[in-house]
């Protein structure tokens, strides 16, 4: 008997279901209508979240992917919808987030004719995706979806685009789904080389002052236990990149704070004092290294990564170990000798003490009436037992919430690191809550960034998504203002903002909230927010003169650290 034939659109939805897709973040339109029509029939098997802007769909899918470890799925139409996803794709590419973004496309006979809502999607998305492919016939759909999941989720994860011509959606095809397990030109998990492991172990066993830099690669590989084991066995302090935060619990005695421009003093100073840097699943971004020519020149460097193009890209390493962080650490651990580096570890205390007195205390226990971002972040963190998911936007709110939040378990931070996308946070928080419904999601944002994707309050309303929105409201584009204060002689060019009453905006969407203007109200307001069932907006009035410290200015040496506007470390 001839096999049943179904439409390409139905093949797509069945393929997504075969890949265990539970949620689609999307927005319909002409060139994707056949798919949305099929979605209607499958609505009991797969849920669609209608966002308010396609950029929001991509960030929501990122938030979902980052907390759950699953691949985020987005479906949008052609033309303007496809151009609206570019920011999300670039962000996911930079931050290694697995996404599959499906765009509708005009019928294949119209391709190249400047047809209504035709955009060269493959052409414009290639530079910001791991793979981008145009499907012109329904027969290709199952194959392409299988390949897309394989590529997006394996190796170093990343975004994939499938651009489906309208006639491929309507055309009939037989359907048999086979997941992809192999691509001849791509080996996502290269075999670990014994020689590289040996070389790395030798350097570790010889080191007197080793220091581990842990990135998101640790989280993506689920190598948190192995990371802790290595650190404990050989007594090695650990610093985390922004995206690597929560790879190690904040209160672990070997955890020494965040790396980079606004990282801990100790982790930056010790980078230039250690005799061995062990970089695991991180890519030596310039926000981590500062001036690479003055970065860890005294140290031997081991670089463990799954992406061979990262080796020697920004920083030269002595030993590179190619592979998945977990598999590498498992192979490495038996060859690492137990060691004690008491003196080296104790030497961190001096830096920590300076940071506590000069930076942390003034930030979280300020002797002034106006509130700081750091004190709010620390209070919210503590009020959730330091066990909530932190989602951030970009700017001072991001750096200070990342600095003062505390983490107990992995996959507890969702933030835009590589691209630094303002407007990322609100949709990402929606995705994070959907990906982890059992955890409290606290989203810290600024008055600028919130307004870049504020329409997603509508999505929160429609689906009753319980995200706690903590608006750190300084009525300024604060991070830019900080640079203007420090490096542009206080000329606040285009950074003050006249803002709406955000609680009223939230109220219009049926979202509860309140405005907090004084410290005395803060604790109770946080309690009310956390006790409330459903989304809540806490508009906290923040001192506009507040700045993020410590700070290593862009392009400076990692040890060139400002403690505040006038003092250096």
């Amino acid at each position, binding site marked *: 008997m001839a096999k049943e034939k179904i439409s390409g659109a139905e093949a797509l939805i069945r393929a997504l279901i075969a890949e265990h897709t539970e949620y689609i973040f999307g927005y319909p339109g002409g060139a994707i209508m056949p798919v949305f029509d099929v979605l209607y029939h499958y609505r009991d098997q797969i849920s669609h979240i209608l966002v308010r802007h396609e950029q929001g769909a991509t960030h929501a899918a990122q938030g979902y992917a980052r907390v759950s470890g699953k691949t985020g799925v987005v479906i949008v139409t052609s033309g303007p919808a496809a151009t609206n996803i570019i920011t999300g794709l670039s962000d996911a590419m930079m931050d290694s987030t697995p996404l599959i973004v499906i765009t509708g496309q005009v019928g294949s006979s119209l391709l190249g004719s400047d047809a209504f809502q035709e955009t060269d999607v493959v052409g414009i998305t290639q*530079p910001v995706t791991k793979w981008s492919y145009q499907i012109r016939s329904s027969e290709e759909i199952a194959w392409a979806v299988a390949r897309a999941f394989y590529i997006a989720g394996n190796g170093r994860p990343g975004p994939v685009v499938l651009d489906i011509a309208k006639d491929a959606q309507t055309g009939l095809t037989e359907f048999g789904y086979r997941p992809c397990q*192999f691509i*001849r*030109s*791509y080996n996502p998990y290269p075999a670990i080389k014994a020689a590289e492991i040996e070389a790395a172990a030798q350097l570790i066993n010889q080191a007197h002052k080793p220091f581990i830099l842990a990135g998101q690669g640790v989280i993506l590989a689920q190598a948190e236990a192995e990371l802790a084991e290595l650190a404990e066995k050989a007594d090695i302090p650990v610093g985390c990149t922004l995206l690597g935060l929560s790879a190690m619990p904040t209160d672990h005695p070997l955890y020494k704070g965040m790396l980079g421009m606004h990282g801990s003093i100790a982790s930056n100073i010790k980078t230039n004092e250690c005799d061995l840097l062990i970089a695991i699943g991180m890519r030596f971004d310039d926000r981590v290294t500062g001036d690479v020519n003055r970065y860890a020149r005294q140290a031997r460097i081991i670089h463990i990564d799954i992406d061979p193009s990262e*080796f*020697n890209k920004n920083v030269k390493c002595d030993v590179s170990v190619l592979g998945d962080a977990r598999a590498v650490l498992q192979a490495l651990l038996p060859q690492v000798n137990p060691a004690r580096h008491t003196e080296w570890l104790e030497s961190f205390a001096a830096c920590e003490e300076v940071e506590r007195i000069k930076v942390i205390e003034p930030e979280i226990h300020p002797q002034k009436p106006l509130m700081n971002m750091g004190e709010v972040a620390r209070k919210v963190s503590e009020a959730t037992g330091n066990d909530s998911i932190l989602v951030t936007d970009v700017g001072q709110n991001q750096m200070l919430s990342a600095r003062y939040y505390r983490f107990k378990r992995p996959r507890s931070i969702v933030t835009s690191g590589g691209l630094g996308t303002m407007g990322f946070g609100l949709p990402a928080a929606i995705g994070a809550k959907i990906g982890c419904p059992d955890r409290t999601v606290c989203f810290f944002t600024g008055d600028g960034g919130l307004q870049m994707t504020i329409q997603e309050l509508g999505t929160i309303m429609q689906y009753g998504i319980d995200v706690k929105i903590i608006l750190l409201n300084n009525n300024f584009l604060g991070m830019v203002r900080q640079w203007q204060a420090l490096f542009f002689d206080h000329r606040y060019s285009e950074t003050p903002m006249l803002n709406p009453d955000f609680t009223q905006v939230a109220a219009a969407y049926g979202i509860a909230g309140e405005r907090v203007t004084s410290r005395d109200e803060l604790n109770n307001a946080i309690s009310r927010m956390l006790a409330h069932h459903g989304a809540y907006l806490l508009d906290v009035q923040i001192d506009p003169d507040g700045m993020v410290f410590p700070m290593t200015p862009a392009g400076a040496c990692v040890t060139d650290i400002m403690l505040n506007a006038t003092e250096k470390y």
Partner: protein
Amino acid sequence: MTDKTLYTVTVYSENQVGLLNQISIIFTRRQLNIESLSVSASAIEGVHKFTITTYSDRETMKKLVKQIEKRIDVLRAFFYTDDEIVFQEVALYKVPTDKLLDDKHIEELVRKHNARILEVNRIYTVIEKSGHTDETQALFEELSRYEVMQFVRSGRIAITKSTVEHVSLFLQEQQYRQNQL
């Protein structure tokens, strides 16, 4: 940035639409000018080969080929200096026939440059020469005295002097990996 060498990059890929674009933007992002480019089938069925030349330094080239290999449909990418490869280009020259006939040295010229005449009619003559850039350029300069109506030089094609076929080895490894699944 001063000591720039001409490197030959070879890329082996699956035959996928849009790969040329993916590869060329990797050059563009690093401000590398593509001096010449040629694409063809390779000795391995279904595998395409790009040969690209560019002026750069060794460190940049190392990073460049890794970025190229990162593209999903690329099998392997390599870079070589001229002493590591056997390479060739072809040039075609279109010259007015009357001017050639008026000159006594035409035979000598063709012989000296080891060139060939591909087509002759009353109006023009098409000459072909293969060789390295300086050689095809030398003939161009000599022919210029007759007026060159059209001139074209192909992209470089190259074959390695190495005794190991790295792409075949890679494909064998991948085949082994597939069999393990």
